[in-house]
């Protein structure tokens, strides 16, 4: 297996008296989809926000390609090539696909925007991701379906030679066919060598697209399993009780947290 691209070691985070994350370890490998699962309040969002630099960390370290890094705000993450696609899509409805993909990072020539070049690159990126569902990169985002919008949001994240993409519930609001499109896209991102971290509540999605699953239980990593050696039942048990058979937290730890 390749070396991990991102490693989180012994991460602790408290909000006042509430200890939200306990010694969390997380590893993301290039070319793999790592799923982060857990019940509401397990600390998934806090973990992602801490890596994104939105929250500060109390203790622990983050290693990018083996070297320790400090991420103190979202632009540090972007510089390292870590992109985040949030659940509420950060797209402007009144702009077209190209304009959205380049928002905030427009290509300029002589002080004016190079619209043609941006259009070409947007199309190249979508083509590279084998996206076939948009008829024009000049379409206004307001006219797109949920799946197409999610596709644009993901394509926007990978446009910048990013190394790792965090996806927060990318299929939450989608129908069957559109979920299919987005899951295919998630898989293709990993096949292109990116590290993908997928946050999801949907076990079918996770089993289908992820290589490894990290289950969080009340701020602790209950277990890290490979999907091919695991089952939906096992993962659901890890999520709900923190343990499953020999896997997971020691009974004392699991009960203590409640």
């Amino acid at each position: 297996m390749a070396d991990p691209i991102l490693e989180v070691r012994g991460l602790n985070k408290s909000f006042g008296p509430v200890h939200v994350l306990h010694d969390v370890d997380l590893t993301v490998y290039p070319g793999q989809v790592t799923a982060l699962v857990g019940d509401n309040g397990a600390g998934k969002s806090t973990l992602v926000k801490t890596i994104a630099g939105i929250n500060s960390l109390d203790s622990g370290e983050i290693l990018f390609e083996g070297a320790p890094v400090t991420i103190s705000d979202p632009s540090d993450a972007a510089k390292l090539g870590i992109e985040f696609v949030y659940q509420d899509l950060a797209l402007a409805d009144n702009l077209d696909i190209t304009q959205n993909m380049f928002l905030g990072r427009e290509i300029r020539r002589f002080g004016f925007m190079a619209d043609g070049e941006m259009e070409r690159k947007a199309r190249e990126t979508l083509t590279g991701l084998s996206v076939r569902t948009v008829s024009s990169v000049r379409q206004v985002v307001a006219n797109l379906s949920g799946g197409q919008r999610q596709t644009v949001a993901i394509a926007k994240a990978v446009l910048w030679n990013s190394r790792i993409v965090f996806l927060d519930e990318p299929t939450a609001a989608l129908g069957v066919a559109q979920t299919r499109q987005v899951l295919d896209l998630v898989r293709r991102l990993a096949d292109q060598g990116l590290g993908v971290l997928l946050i999801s509540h949907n076990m079918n999605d996770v089993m289908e697209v992820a290589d490894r699953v990290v289950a969080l239980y009340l701020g602790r990593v209950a277990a890290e399993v490979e999907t091919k050696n695991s089952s939906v039942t096992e993962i659901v048990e890890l999520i709900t009780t923190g343990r499953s058979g020999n896997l997971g937290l020691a009974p004392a730890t699991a009960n203590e947290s409640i």
Partner: protein
Amino acid sequence: MSEQTTHPTTTPAARSGPDTDQTTERASSFSLDIDRRNVRDAVRGYLDRLRSGEPGALPSVLGLLVLGVIFYLVSDRFLSANNIGNLPGQGAYIAIIALGLVFVLLLGEIDLAAGTTGGICAGAAAQALASHGLRHGIPGAGALYWIVIVAMVAAAGLGFYLRAITGPVIVLIGVVITLTGLDSRPVFAIIFAVALGAAVGIFSGWLVASVGIPSFIVTLALFLAWQGLLLFLLNSQPIGTNGYPLWYGLAHDNMSPFWSWVFTIAVVGGYLAYTIFKSLRAQAKGLAADTMQLVLVRGLLIAVVAIVITALANQNRNTNQFKVINGLPWALTIPVMLMIVCTIALTKTTWGRHLFATGGNAEAARRAGIDVVHIKVTAFTICSAFGALGGVFLASNTGGAQLDLGSGNILLFAVAAAVIGGTSLFGGRGRPRDAIIGALVIVIIPNGIGLRPSLPASYQNLITGAVLLVAAAVDALSRRRSASR
């Protein structure tokens, strides 16, 4: 007219992709990007947009035609060259204030004070001319001059702090002009007025964007306050501006026929050259583009209209035989030039793109790394600076700085102009040209009614209100249609 062949270099992977069972809602694989748009496609696309709720300029142009026919029936003088030639002078101030408002409306904000800001700025400029430079003190309010100077310097500092550059620089130029006494000359007095407007805009933009007060409240407060300030600036005496040829000429004079042609040829030629160049280059590089045929048809239509207008304007239109009046009015060419500059700023610069993004989804803009506060402050600065220039045109049209300059319905007419033209009050949608077309609709109503003395003036606001309501209804219905898809 034949369909253009697909461009060979684009998206080979997309077309030869293996899985064809993908559900596609519409034509896929960038089909619309590969096929060039020709005239038929453009017409069909336009009809589609109309049906799906993007009426564009159509309602306002239709409204203009309907009102034109009505007023032609009301008075045969309506379509006389003399009357049409007067329209720009009567409406330029609405067009210019509305142009500035488009920037603020694009953000989903409002500037209720643009009109009275124009009042104080034009009032200060008139006072500067009347008292041979403001530095000699504003009659009846000696300390006011220094308060204005300190406020302008503070606004410039605030602007630099908020990372705006152009606005504060203009404000400082205004400060220099008045401190050196240059504002006793009409050109510099008008520049000073614009600088004062920019200072007001930085201030109100800061209150909205940084302090977080709703723009409706901030600008309502300024709307009221400036009406009081204007009385101090004018020392409660109206100041005439007809004695300054430059100022008087803004709303009343024309370019010479020669320069009118130069203007028309430069504008139309520039438009044609740009669109043709863009189409050729886009086709060469395989980008989404219009066919040359479409570009030429559209360009020629615009050229014909512009040339006919210029040719008619260059005829003598004075009914009095002792003086010749011909050429394009400055009150037409200046707003058109401003509109072109605004259009370029909004569609070709990253700042304009970021303004649209902020108006469409401020959170998305923020996450994309856009400085939303900076965008809002600059938009308010532009709006107030245009408001100041609008106030100058208003004073030119009415003959001077009256005690109620810029108050009353003026701001609301400007908002109505932008909305009638197709700018949305909810932000994210609008174009500078909306302001010009809308202002034309607004101004022909009082003009047409004024031609038939037996018609009471009370019709004016009634008709304006009805037109605005229809325009807003078209906007609301179109939003609902695009939302329901």
